[in-house]
């Protein structure tokens, strides 16, 4: 299968790889996927008092397209408000990375990951 240049770039030079303290109140963690399905994404966001995402980190077990989708997502969400981040659609990611149909599920997983991270953050604010 041929990969787009953008997928290869993110795969070879993934942005924002890492881990945050998931117990911290200003951190939201989204872990989606399953090892048995061949991909697991963990996306974490650090949110400032103004509701803007200050930082984002990810780690992904999965194919090159899954790694690229999550890497791209961390770039996109930084500097966005939670509401804006909530609006990111999997189709935007798939389009940006030129994912073939068989890899579209990777972008769906990335959308699920940011939604899960926002939900986790919100539940901590209670």
């Amino acid at each position, binding site marked *: 299968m041929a990969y787009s240049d953008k997928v290869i770039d993110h795969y070879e030079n993934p942005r924002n790889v890492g881990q945050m303290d998931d117990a911290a109140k200003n951190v939201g963690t989204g872990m989606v996927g399953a090892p048995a399905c*061949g991909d*697991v994404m963990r996306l974490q966001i650090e949110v400032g008092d103004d509701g803007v995402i200050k930082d984002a980190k990810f780690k992904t*077990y999965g194919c090159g397209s899954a790694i690229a989708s999550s890497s791209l997502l961390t770039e996109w969400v930084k500097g966005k408000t939670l509401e804006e981040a909530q609006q990111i659609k999997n189709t935007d990611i798939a389009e940006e990375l030129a994912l073939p149909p068989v890899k579209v599920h990777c972008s769906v997983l990335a959308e699920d990951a940011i939604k899960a991270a926002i939900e986790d953050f919100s539940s901590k604010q209670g």
Partner: protein
Amino acid sequence: MKLPIYFDYSATTPVDERVAEKMCRCLTLDGVFGNPASRSHPFGWEAEKLADEARQHVAALINADPREIVWTSGATESDNLAIKGVAHFYHKRGKHIITVKTEHKAVLDTCRQLEREGYEVTYLDVESNGLLDLDKFRDALRDDTILASVMHVNNEIGVIQDIAAIGQICRENKVIFHVDGAQSAGKVEIDMQSLPVDLMSFSAHKIYGPKGMGALYVRRKPRVRLEAQMHGGGHERGLRSGTLATHQIVGMGEAFRIAKEEMAAENARLLALRNRLWNGLKDMEEVYVNGDLEQRIAGNLNISFNFVEGESLMMALKDMAVSSGSACTSASLEPSYVLRAIGRPDELAHSSLRFTLGRYTTEEEIDFVISKLREQVKRLRDLSPLWDMYKAGIDLNSVQWAAH
């Protein structure tokens, strides 16, 4: 060292130069281009002579009578001819067939077709090492079983089934025994004088011959009957009509001749290379060999790197051609059915790579792949949330995953 490196010899092999040279002499006007079935002129006689010689070479590798060799277009056709041919010819005797879940699709899909025609097929499980339990095989036999089909060497994990013992059980129960030998010819000793095997499928392109060429061994004593699947001019004693492809046949013959001559030395060399590869990797954490390491052909190493997804690893190994049992290489998102059948959990099946070595593999290439693998597995594990969890002592089976 030339890049990319080829580590996919079980998918196909390059044609040996000695083979290619012989093939080329059967194509053009000044070569042997005649139709082997032409009896009225020397063009036909010459071609027939070459086809006969090739038949002898193929028979010699497996210690069979040349009259027991039927030319086909490849192992897939041989499997079809053997299984459908027996089922259709002996259907009055019974309609039950036994095969194994780890067989090649050419066998499995042929059996599926027969199920649609009203036959019953038992698909046996294998043990965790990939091998068949003989008692379970015996238990599966019924009064109406007419045929058993078991592959000699598995294409994904390279394990060697005990076809002598399975064949013996078939003999005792008057069941015809077919073996898919596409991955074993030239790699494992095959002696048809002593093996209780009735039908055996072979391919040319797995052992440095041309693609589009194969053969089916059909035992004469005791005689096995088949219903032809391809009708026409009555070639190959009516079992497979179609003008003989002289150049292809000559190629297969030469490939089998070379294999007989060089097999022992080549196996020793490949085993040393495979051991070198495995020794260079086995001290890594969470690395598993899939399938029995002893009952296995020399050139195959199928391994899983836990917590690293196979396709992403293949992407990292862009300078080498390997194959992955993992989902994403094929259009389906399912992990390898062979690795599932040996009881590998899906996550390990998703993390597998198959290295198959061959005639042109060098030590230098092996050392290169070892260093690349160690570096890239580490890089991808540093990217893997599963690796973090494993390192933190979390049992991944205790986690509630959101399956998708």
